[in-house]
């Protein structure tokens, strides 16, 4: 019986969550109580550590699990401050006049979707509302599918539905092309060299949005969503450096630090990095989405990790003191 207890608890939890009325949201007072309890539990761990009782990794996992799941049901208003690089990205997109042709490169796959999909949705919604013409492509095989998912979602919005957005006129999906940075290079001389047909096998010459689009000189802005190679670095090195394209990017938190040098050298016109970047981008574009929900669990988990870093250092100093005392 004892052996199956964790499984029984897990199944019971799943059943309880499944039966809960949706959307479940606990009041601000209860949210504060839960937060204080979590803080007290962390303090308890700190006190235990100071007394020389070191905790195992399972305790860390438990706290992280709680800090990631509980905030989904909480009701907290967080202050918003848009980072300069995100503001720069928004300003660059906001300056584009209606009818501008924007190339959206979706270079990521589902594991990075929690960070990048909100940016994709906010961008697509903004583009459709402001009459930007979006040309989608992907250097990652799953990228165009992620773009489709974002488009299907934003097309549900009444304001966008009222605009009667049409495939081929307002947006086009060129699909995936293998070849990594060589695809970008070839697009510099001829789009049709790499993408003679769209994702539906339609000849690009018969797609109205692509009329007059031969190479990067016919593109007003490139927005790249990237989570690795090939991605933003390759777009900067080839599209920006060789063809003078104006590029803005959305990156995963892991990748974002590596493209900061391109921001200060103005090769990159703005950057939204990670979940917080996605949240700020949503706020800047006025298209609040899932990142606004995800940022609270991220905040809690960051605080818990910081708490454990402090506890880990307390453990280190307790260890030093103990060894010094034993030495004496």
């Amino acid at each position, binding site marked *: 019986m004892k052996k199956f207890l964790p499984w029984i608890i897990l199944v019971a939890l799943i059943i309880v969550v499944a039966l809960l009325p949706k959307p479940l949201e606990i009041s601000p007072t209860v949210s504060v109580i839960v937060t204080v309890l979590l803080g007290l539990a962390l303090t308890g761990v700190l006190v235990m550590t100071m007394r020389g009782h070191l905790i195992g990794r399972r305790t*860390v996992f438990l706290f992280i699990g709680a800090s990631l799941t509980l905030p989904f049901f909480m009701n907290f208003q967080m202050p918003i401050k848009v980072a300069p690089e995100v503001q720069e990205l928004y300003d660059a997109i906001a300056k584009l006049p209606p009818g501008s042709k924007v190339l959206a490169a979706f270079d990521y796959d589902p594991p990075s979707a929690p960070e990048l999909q909100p940016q994709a949705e906010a961008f697509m919604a903004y583009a459709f509302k402001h009459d930007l013409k979006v040309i989608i492509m992907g250097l990652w095989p799953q990228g165009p599918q992620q773009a489709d998912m974002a488009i299907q979602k934003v097309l549900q919005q009444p304001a966008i539905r009222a605009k009667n957005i049409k495939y081929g006129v307002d947006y086009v999906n060129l699909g995936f*092309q293998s070849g990594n940075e060589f695809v970008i290079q070839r697009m510099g*001389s001829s789009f049709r060299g790499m993408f003679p047909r769209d*994702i539906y096998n*339609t000849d690009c010459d018969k797609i109205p949005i692509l009329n007059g689009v031969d190479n990067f000189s016919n593109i007003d802005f490139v927005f790249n969503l990237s989570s690795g190679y090939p991605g933003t670095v390759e777009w900067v090195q080839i599209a920006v450096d060789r063809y003078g394209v104006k590029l803005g990017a959305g990156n995963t938190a892991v990748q974002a*630090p590596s493209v900061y040098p391109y921001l200060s050298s103005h090769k990159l016109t703005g950057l939204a990095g990670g979940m917080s970047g996605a949240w700020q981008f949503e706020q800047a574009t006025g298209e609040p989405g899932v990142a606004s929900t995800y*940022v609270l669990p991220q905040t809690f988990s*960051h605080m818990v*990790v910081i708490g454990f870093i402090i506890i880990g250092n307390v453990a280190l100093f307790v260890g030093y003191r103990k060894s010094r005392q034993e030495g004496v």
Partner: protein
Amino acid sequence: MKREIPLIITFVAGVAFVLQYFIPHYPFNRFENLFSDWFSIVGAFAIWLGALSLIKLCLLNISKKAHDWPISLLIIVCFLAIVVAGAIDGFNGLKNVPTTSFRDPGTNFDWLYQNVYTPLSATMFAILAFFVASASYRAFRARNTAATLLLLSAFFVMIGRVPIGDYLSAWLPPSWQLSQWANWLMAFPNTAGQRAVMIGIALGTVSTSLRIILGIERAHLEG
């Protein structure tokens, strides 16, 4: 000749690549298009090669009843399921007017992508949060000056990148709030470090490329 011919091909292709970058005029600009097309074709074949070698490896594991062979069987079943679903949807889409794609909403492939592939991939990635937290607890320790600097940077970036940073430091002047500390760390020390790494990698790439083009480095011809 077994070694000389690949060396000549490497030399010619390498020199042509360098020339087409620095001389964007006829006939060198033609090289660029030609090589890009070739690379895409080779890349497309590489995808098939990767898929086939995965299948081969899994079949070998199954035939030898190697350790965890049921996982290999599962890989083959999943691979075939998504390929078959995509192929059926793709062929059906060609009959529609206008043609539809296997990726379109409502297709079997899209159902598998949205309800199996996406949640499983996201779950695998999400598990990292637990390991990162556990690793931070054990690794971010102020053992020496460098480790302490790393620890402090991690602290300011982690707290400054989430809204609670500004909430806790709201009493400070705006330019001293925690988000500004995080922005400064990312814009200056991080950029400086990343630049050093980038320049180092670039110099290493150039020297290795030259060695390969000139035939000094021949490791790629072995095995």
